[in-house]
């Protein structure tokens, strides 16, 4: 099956490509990129006029809850949501039940993803057995079964000594350790940012220092162990400054931010106690939000991720203090970036592609995808003018706990190609 994409505006900062071209996909690869390609027999022509073609988007931080919490999401439903959101690749966090801490667990996810036959699913293995922070997980076994990175996401590794051991051990493989930074002795009962929000709404605060202290610790452990480190869902100005300083020192440190931390802050949590705004780390101050937004624009933040965290209705339709942490994000991430940063002129298309496709692949040690002949045909086609309403009906994910329900957004993926297969066609998931 060959697809001929006519008149697409291709953007690929890896090639300094930013112009209207025709692209021929043949089998699993891009066969040709040229100003004008003649249709051959058997080619399916897709009119790309007015649309942007970019390397397939990658969300390197999602929770698919499978195995263990299939009532929230499965690999199959998560892959549908990812495809609907324009992603060709996702990396799944290991806080499943059982925890994904063995090669068998990694293999299970890979097999399920093959059965779903939509996006690539890149499992992230646990750093410690059961994510308990006590003993090394079988990291080498997981590497051999296809784990893309290692993290105890959901928890910080509380002991500095244990984190040192993890990073020492990971450093023998070409993989990064991803740190969820949370010192639980500081964040104990916290359910909301410590400061104005915790005071106003009368709940225990989750202080910024609880995150920043572990960012500092883990950066120093990079100096000691040499293990490349990626800071998950950074949420404070000071945390970002620590990462910038580490980069300036030449350390192999990268970081990511979520759409909710660059588009929402603690002031958005009103007396309505909307539990879809309860996250870990929590929404921070307007000043933190501004710093993170600047960071994603100026290159100091490497990746945009959603931390897609599905929860069932009954786990969110309750009092804030007992509601589960997290928001889904796969189906609003690209539309939010296009609506709030690209269409306003603050972010270039090239920068968007860097944070949503190029950099996540590099952090996950995946082969680059480029818009040129011979590259793997993992591609996303985007209509910047199409408007969506974020409603429960729009969402393919099994759970509807979006912090952005009710928003009207402009700019959305219409087509996704994975290994040359069209997994999203005119906005419809091809199951």
């Amino acid at each position, binding site marked *: 099956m060959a697809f001929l994409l006519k008149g697409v505006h291709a953007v690929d900062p890896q090639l300094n490509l930013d112009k209207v071209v025709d692209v021929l996909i043949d089998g699993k690869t891009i066969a040709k990129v040229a100003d004008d390609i003649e249709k051959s027999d058997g080619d399916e022509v897709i009119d790309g006029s007015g649309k942007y073609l970019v390397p397939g988007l990658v969300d390197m931080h999602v929770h698919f809850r499978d195995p263990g919490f299939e009532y929230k999401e499965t690999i199959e439903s998560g892959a549908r949501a990812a495809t609907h959101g324009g992603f060709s690749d996702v990396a799944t966090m290991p806080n499943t039940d059982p925890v994904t801490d063995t090669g068998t667990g990694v293999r299970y996810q890979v097999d399920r993803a093959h059965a779903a036959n939509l996006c690539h699913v890149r499992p992230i293995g646990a750093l410690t057995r059961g994510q308990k922070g006590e003993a090394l997980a079988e990291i080498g076994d997981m590497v051999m079964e296809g784990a893309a990175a290692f993290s105890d996401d959901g928890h910080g590794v509380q002991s500095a000594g244990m984190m040192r051991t993890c990073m020492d051990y990971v450093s023998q493989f070409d993989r990064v350790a991803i740190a969820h930074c949370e010192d639980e002795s500081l964040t104990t009962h916290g359910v909301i940012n410590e*400061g104005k929000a915790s*005071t106003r*709404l009368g709940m225990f605060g989750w202080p910024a220092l609880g995150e920043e202290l572990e960012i500092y610790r883990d950066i120093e452990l990079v100096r000691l162990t040499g293990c490349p480190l990626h800071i998950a869902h950074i949420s404070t100005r000071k945390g970002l400054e620590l990462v910038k300083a580490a980069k300036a020192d030449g350390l192999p440190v990268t970081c990511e931010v979520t759409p909710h931390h660059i588009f929402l802050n603690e002031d958005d949590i009103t007396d309505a106690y909307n539990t879809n705004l309860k996250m870990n780390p929590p929404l921070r101050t307007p000043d933190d939000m501004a710093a993170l937004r600047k960071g994603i624009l100026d290159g100091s933040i490497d990746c945009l991720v959603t931390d897609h965290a599905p929860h069932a209705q009954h786990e969110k339709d309750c009092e*804030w203090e007992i509601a589960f942490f997290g928001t889904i994000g796969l189906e609003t991430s690209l539309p939010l970036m296009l609506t709030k940063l690209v269409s306003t002129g603050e972010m270039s298309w090239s920068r968007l592609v860097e944070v949503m496709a190029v950099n996540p692949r590099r952090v996950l040690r995946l082969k680059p995808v480029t818009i040129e002949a011979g590259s793997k045909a993992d591609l996303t086609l985007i209509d910047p003018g199409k408007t969506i309403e974020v409603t429960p009906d729009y969402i393919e994910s099994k759970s509807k706990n979006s912090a952005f329900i009710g928003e009207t957004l402009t700019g959305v993926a219409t087509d996704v190609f994975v290994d040359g297969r069209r997994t999203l066609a005119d906005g419809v998931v091809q199951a």
Partner: protein
Amino acid sequence: MLSVKHLIDTYSLTADDITQILDTAAAFESVNNARVIKKVPALRGRTIVNLFLEPSTRTKSSFELAEKRLSADSISMGGSTSSVVKGESLADTIQTIDAMNVDMFVCRARLAGTPQKITENTDAIVINAGDGKHQHPTQAMLDLYTIRKHFGHLDGLKVAIVGDLAHSRVCGSLAPALKTMGAEVTLVGPPTFQVDDPDWFGCPQTSSLDEVIDSVDVVYMLRVQLERMEGAAIPSRREYNRLYGLDMRRVDRMKDNAIICHPGPMNRGMEINADVADCARSRILDQVNAGVLTRMAEMYLLLGGDQNGISA
């Protein structure tokens, strides 16, 4: 008429709302405090559900008596009889009771935001009888009533709120209400009990009771929740009493006309010494009495009564 449909917090109340509540409560003084037949027909035929999801003695009995004195039909549920304890969600509990057609919920809860959540699941009017560490507006109204009754006014008064500020819904609702009425508030407590963001309250915060004791009109002692001593927020009862407890030595330094309040229940010998609790400056039992009056006023006003409509 009040400017709010529900009584959830004090920072949504205007000075006019608060004045209406206090004036209406004053009009109930004769019913509650002077008559043999302590009852008016003001809320006859109206149905009120007291949903007490966390233990309460004084607030619950205060509401129940206020309801009886207004002739409302009321039931009380909670504790071990609550289906919430059996694992039912709050939304289901409220929708179930709502289906029986009630006019008002009075809710006490362990979790902040519970009363707001109730409003999303019923058309009935909701009164917050204390939600977690968030708000306790009916406590604030009875406090204001007690203070106003003593001084004749609220504006210009200086009030020190002393103790476990960060974990106190009493502080959270009293401080904004006092400010709305033109009083000056100082928050006093050990740093481990101070609020995360004093700027939000717009009040100065200090760790020295001795610095403020001789300049304030009202010393409002908060209850220290003993369970919070775990985790070492304070080292001991003894040390707390020495640094922050109200003893006669400190009482003697108070202004001539100054008064002492406490929301109860008291830890005698910790935040307040026994002789202080029972001294002439203490308004602690007056607060309890005002609780019935102000709760009558709040229910009466929220259920559609107006100040002129009060008649025996």
